[in-house]
Structure formats: structure tokens, C-alpha cells
């Protein structure tokens, strides 16, 4: 069969912050570049980001600098990070944020006209550049408008099914289908950048959209790359819990950064009871001290509500289990009694509307009911920090799909800055690779045809399962067994269940035609969701300790032994239903001067 075909130098899969930033870099180098996205342009996850983007610009606290940001990121990540990524991120984020203003971004300002910065958990200083609580919209619109003004080709509503290699084992392109028509398209390119975002859709309660099915994670695995830290999943402490229809929807950490506090059903500000030793020295031990801090960070230590997300999510979980939860199984987040209505509406306009319109709650007067929601995957494709290159020649990865930057737990605001720092670096890495490229990419035709056939199989079957039933069962299974608090028996159960899900996916029946058929689209998502879930469960059972976004009931402490390596997964068969091999992969050795930064007492 022949399909519509396109040739490029660089193909970027994903039009979130990472993909668009990469495209700008490649386009500026004069290369032929295309961006492919499952949705329309401007609708990627990045648009949903609320609170802000972290960069040590020092606009509000001149004491801030890259060293402190680096230290905060490593501590937040419980030292599992790729130190070099954390270092580059901390050093380059300020310049990347400022650059956005040349392309039209308009951040909220300080009194003296600089970019304003707000407080977030785990960041020692107010560090998040923001626009109210719609920072992601500002980021994606700015990059989108820049890309459009440069005339970059964008293929919207094209879903990439799999990457295709050439005969030498280099990545040579991909095969996709157009959602509106259901027709297949092939793309050949000298380099491919994965910027496909996250994988939260495999859990029942999630802040992620239908797009977050881990396609890029899975495609990298199937292409021969390694995935690391997959057990590290961030459950954001504050998702909406009621009404059920919005369960999981995000409530920005900005609420706590701007003065909101957590209370249990007894009205107690319980976070004071959950300060881990590692954070005790820098955390307030009374409400009076904590409350002074908001206005002046030298007047008191930080409130415990602003501990890193893993700490707060676990605390909420414990309170609810102890019977001190709210009627719908969450706890209370209160800003209404602490800040003026005018302040709340100005700083948190979309939170105000979200609660007013969807829950009928006026957050300037009432408390919000919140609980943890699956939000972000720290794990991802193993890359070289400087170039974003994976172990597969010609394949690069940046943004949420890449692993290493955030270690075991990501700090709020560090993702948007990650996108622009490593999106740019992936663009540079891919462009350099293309400039040294010999020959021209040739797609392995047999592989293209096999991918097409496999995706069409659900139409051929006489009988089979509805993909929506499989998705629902998968989400419930993962939520119940690979959730916030994990234990060996449940994880082992999950691993064996995932094998039966694999069989169920092979028996899907899709109804209707190929044009804009969401059932079919879901059928093509499920192999990726299963591959990713398998890696998560395998990493989780092997990591016999608790660290960041991975908490084991049967191993509640962090262990020094496990602090020295990541678990790396690969797929020798390069197939979604093939076996996964998991190995220990040593962390990079950190240079002495950076180690010293971590050890400095504060």
C-alpha cells in the first residue's frame, strides 16, 4: 500500500510547550521541520497548566539564584534526578522565560515592571513566573503564535501510531493516521523529537486529558530506547473530589502559595504533624510563624502546606484514612477565610470560576474539598542532558515524556520551565544530528504495513470487546493497585492483571467507520497505556523503599542502597505485547562543587 507521504529533516511529535519550543529552534536553523499533534494546535496539556513556571530570576527575592533552584530541585526529587538536567534547567530557565516576552508573552509584573514571581511548594524563594492562574495558556499561545509566524508545518489531529526505523537501526520516521478521515500518512525524517507529554490517563482519578496515554513513552520503548523512573508518579495533593463528574480536576498549588491552608474535618491545620526530618529545619512549627512568611520570607519559616507534593499528598491520604476526611473523601483547602475576595478573584480567577460553575462553591467564602489526583509522570525516556538524545540514533525526547530531570518527585512550576529549556536543547540536538547525517532516511515498508494492519484489526473482528470497557477496567485496576500507597502483593497482582489486559486488547472490536472515531482512537491508545502501566508496576515492585512519588507501605523508609540507581526498562522484542526487561542503571556521578551545594545547611 502507498499512503500520503511527507519528508522532513526533523519531525516533532507533540505540540505542547516542549514540542513547540523544539520546533522554533529547528526552524531557526533553516531545516525542514514538521510538528504533529493528536489535537488541534493550542490544546495540548500545556494549556491547562495553571500556577506558573519556575526560574531563578531573582525579581522578588534577589537572593535567589540558579544554585538554590538546583538544590531545591534535587531535594524535591529525593536525589534520584539526572543532576546535569537539574543543573542546566536551573541555569537556563531565566533566559528562556525572558525570551518568551520577545515573542509576545505578557507575565504579571512586579511594582518595578519586572516579571512577577510567586511561591510554590519546595521552592525556597518566590520563583514562579505566572499570569494569574493561566500560565500554561500564556506559554502555549506564545509558542504557538511564534511557530505560526515562522511558517512551520503543523499536522493537527494526526495520531502517530509508531516510529519506523531504517535498515541501519536509525529512526527514520513514523506512521500516523489523520483523525478527520481515518487515512494513514507516513513521515520520513532524519531525526525525530518525542514531545508527547504524560501518561496519567491510565489512572481513574487524574488531572490528565484523553491525550495523556503515554504514547511517546511507549513508542520510545518499542523503538529500542530505555524508560527510567517509571514508578515515580506524582499524585498532586489538590484535585477536586466533588461532584464526581469533576473528580481529579486540578486545583492549582497557587492556592497554597497565595495563602491557602489545609484542614481536616476537625478544623485542624494538620500539615504541621507531617514535616519530615529532611524539611524540619526550614519549615515553620507554628501557625503564627507560618503566617508571617507569606509577606516576608525572612520573618518566619515556610508553612508546611508548601512542602513538596509527595509529602502533602501522603499526609492528606493519611488524614482521610484516619477518618478525619471531608464527606466525599478529601480534606478542606481554605483560602476564603484567609484572603480577601478581591485578592482571590484577581490571583486565582480560573479556580474561582471552576468551583463556582462546576461545584457551586464560592471559594472566597467556603472551603474547597480536595484530594490527591494522578497528575504527572516523573519517569520517562532516558536522555542525554545536553542534547536530549536517547540511546536510539536520531531519536530525541523532551518535556514530560523525558525522564531524569525531576527525579522521584517534581516541584510545581518545574515542568513548564523544563519544557522550554529542554525543548530548545532537543531542537539543537536534533538539528546537530541532521547536519552530520549521511544518506537519506528510508522507511522500512514492511514495518509500516504491519503497523497499519495492526491498527485496523479491531474493525475486522466479528466480535470483541468495547475499548471503553477495557480502559475503564484498566483505570480502576491501576488506581486500586498502583496508586499513591503501594504494597508488594497489590503490585504483583497488577503485573499479572496487565498480562490479561494485553490479551483483552488483542480482542477489541471497534464499531463504525474510520473517520473521527473516538472508539477506534482509544483502541490505538490502549497498547501504549498497557506498555507504560507495565513499566510503572514493574519499577514499583522492584523499588523496595519509599521515595518521592513512590510510596511503599511495606518499605516506608528511603533506603541508601536504592538512592544510587534508576530502574531502566527496555523491550527486546520492540513490541507492545512483548516482554519487558528491567535493569538497574547507575545515577550519574555528581561533580564535587554541585554536591557541596546540596550539603550546604540552610
Amino acid at each position: 500500500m502507498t499512503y500520503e507521504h511527507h519528508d522532513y529533516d526533523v519531525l516533532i511529535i507533540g505540540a505542547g510547550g516542549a514540542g513547540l519550543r523544539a520546533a522554533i529552534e529547528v526552524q531557526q536553523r533553516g531545516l525542514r521541520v514538521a510538528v504533529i499533534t493528536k489535537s488541534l494546535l493550542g490544546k495540548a496539556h500545556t494549556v491547562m497548566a495553571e500556577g506558573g513556571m519556575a526560574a531563578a530570576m531573582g525579581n522578588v527575592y534577589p537572593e535567589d539564584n540558579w544554585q538554590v533552584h538546583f538544590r531545591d530541585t534535587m531535594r524535591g526529587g529525593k536525589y534520584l534526578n539526572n543532576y546535569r538536567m537539574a543543573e542546566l534547567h536551573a541555569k537556563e530557565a531565566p533566559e528562556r522565560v525572558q525570551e518568551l516576552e520577545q515573542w509576545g508573552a505578557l507575565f504579571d509584573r512586579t511594582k518595578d515592571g519586572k516579571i512577577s514571581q510567586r511561591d510554590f511548594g519546595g521552592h525556597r524563594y518566590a520563583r514562579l513566573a505566572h499570569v494569574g492562574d493561566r500560565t500554561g495558556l500564556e506559554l502555549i499561545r506564545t509558542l504557538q503564535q511564534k511557530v505560526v509566524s515562522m511558517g512551520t508545518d503543523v499536522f493537527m489531529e494526526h495520531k502517530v501510531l509508531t516510529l519506523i526505523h531504517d535498515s541501519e537501526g536509525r529512526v527514520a520516521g513514523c506512521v500516523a493516521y489523520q483523525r478527520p478521515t481515518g487515512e494513514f500518512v507516513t513521515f520520513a525524517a532524519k531525526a525525530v523529537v518525542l514531545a508527547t507529554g504524560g501518561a496519567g490517563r491510565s489512572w481513574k482519578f487524574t488531572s490528565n486529558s484523553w491525550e495523556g496515554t503515554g504514547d511517546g513513552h511507549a513508542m520510545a520503548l518499542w523503538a529500542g530506547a530505555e524508560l527510567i523512573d517509571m514508578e515515580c508518579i506524582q499524585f498532586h495533593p489538590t484535585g477536586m473530589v466533588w461532584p464526581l463528574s469533576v473528580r481529579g480536576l486540578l486545583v492549582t498549588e497557587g492556592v497554597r502559595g497565595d495563602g491557602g491552608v489545609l484542614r481536616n474535618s476537625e478544623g485542624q491545620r494538620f500539615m504541621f504533624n507531617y514535616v519530615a526530618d529532611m524539611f524540619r529545619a526550614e519549615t515553620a512549627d507554628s501557625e503564627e510563624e507560618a503566617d508571617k512568611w507569606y509577606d516576608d520570607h525572612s520573618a518566619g519559616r515556610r508553612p508546611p502546606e508548601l512542602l513538596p507534593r509527595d509529602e502533602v499528598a501522603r499526609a492528606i491520604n493519611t488524614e482521610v484514612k484516619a477518618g478525619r476526611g471531608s464527606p466525599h473523601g478529601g480534606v478542606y483547602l481554605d483560602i476564603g477565610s484567609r484572603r480577601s475576595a478581591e485578592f482571590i478573584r484577581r490571583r486565582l480567577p480560573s479556580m474561582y470560576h471552576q468551583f463556582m460553575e462546576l461545584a457551586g462553591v464560592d471559594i472566597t467564602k467556603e472551603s474547597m474539598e480536595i484530594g490527591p489526583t494522578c497528575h504527572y509522570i516523573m519517569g520517562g525516556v532516558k536522555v542525554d542532558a545536553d542534547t536530549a538524545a536517547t540511546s536510539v540514533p536520531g531519536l530525541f525526547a523532551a518535556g514530560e515524556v523525558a525522564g531524569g530531570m525531576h527525579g522521584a518527585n517534581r516541584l510545581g512550576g518545574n515542568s513548564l520551565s523544563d519544557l522550554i529549556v529542554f525543548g530548545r536543547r532537543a531542537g539543537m540536538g536534533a538539528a546537530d544530528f541532521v547536519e552530520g547525517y549521511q544518506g537519506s532516511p528510508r522507511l522500512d515498508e514492511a514495518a509500516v504495513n504491519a503497523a497499519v494492519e495492526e491498527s485496523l484489526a479491531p474493525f475486522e473482528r466479528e466480535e470483541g470487546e468495547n475499548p471503553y470497557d477495557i480502559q475503564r477496567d484498566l483505570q480502576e485496576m491501576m488506581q486500586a493497585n498502583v496508586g499513591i500507597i503501594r504494597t508488594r502483593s497489590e503490585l504483583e497482582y497488577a503485573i499479572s492483571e496487565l498480562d490479561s489486559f494485553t490479551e483483552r486488547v488483542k480482542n477489541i472490536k471497534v464499531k463504525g467507520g474510520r473517520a473521527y472515531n473516538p472508539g477506534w482512537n482509544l483502541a490505538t491508545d490502549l497498547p501504549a497505556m498497557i506498555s507504560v502501566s507495565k513499566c510503572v508496576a514493574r519499577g514499583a515492585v522492584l523499588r523496595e523503599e519509599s521515595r518521592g512519588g513512590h510510596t511503599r507501605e511495606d518499605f516506608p523508609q528511603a533506603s541508601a542502597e536504592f538512592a544510587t540507581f534508576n530502574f531502566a526498562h527496555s523491550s527486546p522484542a520492540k513490541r507492545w505485547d512483548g516482554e519487558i526487561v528491567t535493569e538497574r542503571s547507575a545515577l550519574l556521578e555528581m561533580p564535587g562543587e554541585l554536591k557541596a551545594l546540596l550539603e550546604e545547611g540552610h
Partner: protein
Amino acid sequence: MAQVTMRVWRGDANGGDFERYTVEQNEGEVVLDVIHRIQATEAPDLACRWNCKAGKCGSCAAEINGKPRLMCMTRLDQLPEGEVTVTPMRTFPIIRDLVTDVSFNFQMAAKVPALLPPPMPAEGYRMYQEDVERSQEFRKCIECFMCQDVCHVIRDHEENKAHYAGPRFFIRYAELEMHPLDTNDRRDLIREDMGLGYCNITKCCTEVCPEHIKITDNAIIPLKERVVDAHYDPVAWLGRKIRRRTKRSASDAAVQPAP
């Protein structure tokens, strides 16, 4: 268990018809929830767009009981009792079911001459909150294109699309024109090619905007004063915008790439 009957338009460019689905309805649910329930049970091939389910991405616009609304922000308990009718946006060609071809908007976006700022000083630009606020209002736009859908200039006049940018892009032009760093001048373009003169300020666009952007009062009317009125008064315009820079000519605007 409460139930709701949904009358959903199903079909494609060749035509279609309404289908009725009676499904469960739970407390607090929005239209998108029941559309998802229909997909998960009776009609897995029912096409609709959505992403954030929180009114932030602008993907899920459709006409609910004849009015453009975001499906994810329209609570069933706030609609009148009885059947709920859901149809695709009328102004755009149908792809399938509730999904329309909104590429008109992306074509208009491609015609917008980029921001042209002065070189950035080493320590970044200085701008003041009161200077950025006007453009910030327009940058809240989530590109749901419901204002485009409701605007009568193109709603039933396909032929006007060739020379009419529509309210979403009028706010985009207003945003750039009021941007404290911009030095481009897009006046001729807005008047001659973007059809600002066709707008007769009916305010239908403002009424449907889910971001409550005052499209007509804050963007279109000032823009009209600036580019359409014969007696354009530069001093009055400048007075509206604090600390702004001089503009270049429109022809420069079209060719100058932003940094």
C-alpha cells in the same frame, strides 16, 4: 437514578440527522459527561472534541439547545427540564457529528503580522502591570471559536470568510496593537483585508465568550476608532495606551519577522 434524554446530531458533510440517547445523569454532571457516557456505552464512534474538561482549552464548543456553549462547563441541572439538543457549531463545515472543521481560524491566525518588539535589554524588558493588563485580557482567549460561530457576518455567509477575520482575531489584533512592546502597524491590513468594517457591533460575540472578554467594548470599538474612522485621532489613541512606542508602517509589519 435520574435520566436525561440527549438529542445529538449525527452525520458528516453529506448530511445527517438527530439521534436520541437516554442515559443516566448524576449530580453535578455537565453535558460532556453524558456525551462521554454515550460514547462508552451505546455509541463509541460518536465524535466530539475535548481536552481539559475544565473550560481551559476551548476544544469542546458545540451548540446546546441552539446556543454556543462549552460542553464541559454546561451543567445539566442548569438547563431547562426536558430533552437536551446538541449540535455542532453551525459556522464551520462538519467533519463528523459534533466535530467541525475550524481551519478557517488557523488560516486567519497565519495572516497576523507578528509582534515586533525593540531588542531586549540584557536584564529583560520592563513593563508595568497597568500597561500589560489591556492585552492580558485578550490573551485569556481559549480559542473555542464560539464568538466566530455566533458572528452573523460569517454565520450564514460563507462568502464573507475570505475577507473577514472575525471577533477572535479582532481581539488578537487589538492585543498586538495595545501590546506595550509592539512597533508594528497593522492598520491598513485590519481595515482592508480583515474586514473590521463589516462588524456592526451587535455584541453577540461578547455574550458567548466563556472567558468574559469584552470583545466589542474593549477590542472592536477601540480598534474601529483607530483604523476605520476617517477622523482618527492619534493623540486620543495614544492617550488610551500608556507609554507606547511609535509604530512602523503596515508594509514593514508584514515582512518583519519577530526575533
